[in-house]
């Protein structure tokens, strides 16, 4: 097995996640895409851990999973709040920072 197999998979997943973040209008979908990107990173962590024969790769993957869980929790709470205030979760509606 090539090292690159995993790395490229990660890169592909990451770009797909980026696309999702940038293109999707639904707030929940944006959060899901972010999960995709985080997972792409996780692959890299684990693969490099294996490659270098260290355990910290896995440890950090675990940390990332934990942080992702927290992030999803807070992110969804924000989406809910937005929905409650604006009755919409379309991110294109939120442009208070318009210059």
């Amino acid at each position, binding site marked *: 097995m090539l090292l690159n197999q995993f790395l490229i998979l990660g890169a592909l997943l990451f770009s797909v996640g980026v696309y999702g973040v*940038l293109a999707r209008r639904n707030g929940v979908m944006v959060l899901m895409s972010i999960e995709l990107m985080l997972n792409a990173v996780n692959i890299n962590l684990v693969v490099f851990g294996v490659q270098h024969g260290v355990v910290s790769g896995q440890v950090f993957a675990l940390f990332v999973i934990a942080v992702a869980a927290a992030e999803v929790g807070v992110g969804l709470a924000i989406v809910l709040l937005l929905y409650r205030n604006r009755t919409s979760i379309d*991110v294109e509606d939120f*442009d208070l920072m*318009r210059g």
Partner: protein
Amino acid sequence: MWMLENAFLIPLVPAISFVVILFFGKRFIGANRVHIVGITALGLVWVLSAVAAFQWTQRVENPSPDAIVEMATHGGDHGDDHDADHGDDHDADLAVVSTDHSGGEHGGGHSSPLIGPVISTFSQWWSNGGIEFAVGTLVDGLTVLLLIVVASISLLVHIYSTEYVKDDRRYVHYYAFLSLFTAAMLFFVMAQNIVQLIVGWELVGVCSFVLIGHWWEEKPNTDAALKAFLTNRVGDIGLLVGMIVLWGTFQTFDIDAINTLISADPGAHHLALLVAACCLMAAVASKSGQFPLHTWLPDAMAGPTPVSALIHAATMVVAGVYMIARLYPVFYEGLSIGTSSINLMAFIGGFTALIGAGLAFAQWDIKKVLAYSTVSQLGYMVMALGVGAWTAAIFHLFTHAFFKACLFLGAGSVSHAAHHTFDMRKMGGLKKAMPHTYRTFVIASLALAGIFPFAGFWSKDEILLGSLVGQKNSYPLMLIFGCAVAFMTAAYMTRVIWYTFHGEFRGHGQPHESPKMMTVPLWILAGMAVLGGVFNLPGPVLEPFGLEGLAHRIQTYAEPSVYLSGLGISHPDPSLNMALVGLALAVSGILVTYLYYWRRIGLHGLTERNSYAKNGYTFLENKYYLDHLYNDVIVKTVKRPIANWANRVNQNVLDRAVDKAGETARDTGRWIYKWVDQGVIDGSVNAAARGADSSGEGLRVIQSGKVQNYGQLLFGSAAVLAIVFVIVV
């Protein structure tokens, strides 16, 4: 010699007087009594100057060893007892000082040893990039002469003013600035370096500004003050540049050093000296009222009359002449005075003398006549310097100061009597009412006209002689100018006397003689106008009385032979013929004018003779013809078209040019301000701002406030940067 070394005390006294009068005058002395301070100070100055003058004569008569300057190369002795042919002997006269010059005392040539000036330097004034120089005084005969002139006239003017500006609204300021002016002028004449010269030059200018604008409530006065100051400033460009060129050439500011360097090696630096001399001529033209910058001087008559007498006739306006005399080697070499037969300085001087005299005919304001006369006489002095007649010019400066001051103060006295008007059409017949004024005025006029034996005769004669003989070549054109001016001067002064003192009184009220405080100075000045000539009488005049030793005192004492001998400047022999010609011209001038203004009587008598005696027809017709010629051709052309034309040129061309230059400068300023500054430069700044603004507008599109757009930018630019990075690394 203590006074010569500590000459700085002389300007210090009136400077202190200025401070005292201005700051403590009103409070501690009393506004009406400040003149006491001024007069006391001036009295002290006069005494000190007299002491200085005496000590200088001692120095020349019995030189101490350190006073004698040895020069390896210098010109020959050109005393009057030597041959008049001085053509080329100044080139290589290597004679030892004492042998060739022992016999100089009776001819008026400088006494054998070359007496150096007394130079004292005080605190260091400047140290700048390794060049250090000190403020100091340079005292020699010329300085001493000017000290005496300034101190005397200033003192008399101070006394005269106590009556003239009595109860003036700004009595205190008047006296304060009179003192300051005196201090500045004294400082100027004893300048040790050219920076001091500039300082003094400007300071007298500003005093003149303040005093011309003394009654600043009226616009014409302030206009005149401004005009005077600005015209002088125009000349100051020349002064600054000329002085800088001198400094650049000799790397020193020291007047003594500059003069010595030039006279030691006259041929060197000709081009630099030419440039410097031409630039300095501009300064002279402005300060000494030379063509074409003379127009401010008549306007300056807006000031109080004593000020006109002091500043605009006797002292400040001769600053230009003095500067030429002080830096004479510069001009002599720069303008090739010794070898040419016409040069810039002589021409400007001569021409100014001519047009000044011409203009004096067309004036109805008595002070303006005198002002143009001053212009003309200053031109005479400059012309004298221009033809190489150094001593004659200084002699004329000396005599002119006294009789012109007398004339001005006399005019002031007249106006004092005639309800403060200077218009001659409102005068007339004052002869009886004010005999003292009349007599002094006539004496001074005769001196000005150059009638034997008054002071002006001697000095004018020397100038004419100087231009006749010249140095290597004579100056024929200058001689013609000089003669014409001599004639015209006599004529216009006669006219003034006719209108002011003779005929019927045309004003209103009862004219009265001025108080003693005014007439006494007049008489003193008139006395000087009579006797001024004795200070430089030619030898032959004195020989019959056995007083040859007193001949050419000014030449002996005042001439800075230590500089001039190196240049080889000669003194012409006195010439009886020239004197007679000059006198004849003056007399005929008076006569012609006399005939013109008394012509009604003359014509009346003529017609009587026409009707009674037919024998003298031819002669009478000739006489009539002459009368006609004098009246309608000469006098009228001189009086009307030429003077008017000159006046018109003066008013419309030169004066307009000054005004126009000012207007144009202002318009240009406006234009530049409006279009360039506000339009282009400021505009480009604003345009830059607008550019930033519009690019901001462009950026606003990106600034949508949508997170995803930001994300696109973020990731997009990250990608692009990554690509760049990948490609580069």
